[in-house]
């Protein structure tokens, strides 16, 4: 378990540790298994709709990327913090066997109803740096005070 992050440890503009992942086909098939999303777009490179979209490779599930961003958000919260709100939009496609980077930055710190809240911008970006899954999160952290 990583060390607990406290509210006082965090500064606006601070970046979350990045996570890099390169999903392979088995990972996507297992995600299909776990999520129940069995759309062949995600595992059959000969599925006709892919060709219609001009693609020759399978698309990574949006919710897979959401889950990867979730790893970064929940890592910040640790055991003593709580994720209050967390969402992303699916704005761009990522393809099988291509590296995806999860990143995030602290945009605000505030106290509200006795809670110490941290606002975050979070996202995944592809190899070209395009943000394919941008979102926001609010995490309540424990305070040293």
């Amino acid at each position, binding site marked *: 378990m990583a060390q607990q992050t406290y509210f006082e440890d965090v500064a606006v503009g601070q970046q979350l540790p990045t996570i890099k992942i390169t999903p392979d*086909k*088995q990972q996507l*098939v297992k995600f*299909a298994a776990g999520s129940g999303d*069995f759309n062949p777009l995600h595992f059959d490179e000969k*599925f006709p709709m892919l060709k219609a979209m001009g693609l020759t490779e399978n698309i990574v599930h949006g919710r897979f990327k959401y889950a990867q961003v979730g790893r970064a958000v929940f890592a910040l919260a640790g055991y003593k913090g709580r994720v209050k709100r967390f969402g992303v939009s699916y704005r761009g496609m990522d393809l099988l066997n291509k590296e995806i980077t999860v990143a995030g930055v602290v945009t605000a710190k505030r106290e509200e109803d006795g809670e110490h809240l941290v606002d975050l911008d979070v996202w995944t970006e592809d190899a070209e740096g395009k943000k394919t899954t941008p979102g926001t999160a609010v995490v309540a952290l424990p305070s040293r005070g």
Partner: protein
Amino acid sequence: MTHQVFFEDVHAGDEIPQLRKNCSTQQLVQWAAASGDFYQIHYDRDFAQATGLKGLIVHGALKNAFLGQLLHDWIGEGGQIRRFGCSYRGMDEPGQDILCRGVVTKTYTLDGRHYVDLDIWTEKPDGKRTSPGTATVTLPGRA
């Protein structure tokens, strides 16, 4: 409720109603999900070809399950499968028909139960039997 088959209607040499299957790649992934068999030869063409196969192949256990469906569909609510099994002797591929068939080999009554032995198998469009096996079921009698 399906039509119930009775022991007295069944004789050695009878063929039971056939069951035709044709697996999509999606069905193979769903089977991987349900069975926990995530070996890539069932959904990753590059992987399958790298191991020397022509392409994706259907899980053997899925064909065994199809044979279970063949039997269940035939015996109806009044029958019971006592045992069944098959060997994996040949490969099937997604997008190609898999015909499930069964032939009665023996009928007998033991301790008041009506038994039927069968040869069961899956076959490819060219007639090659890819999953031959045997089964024993019990059927209700009319008496």
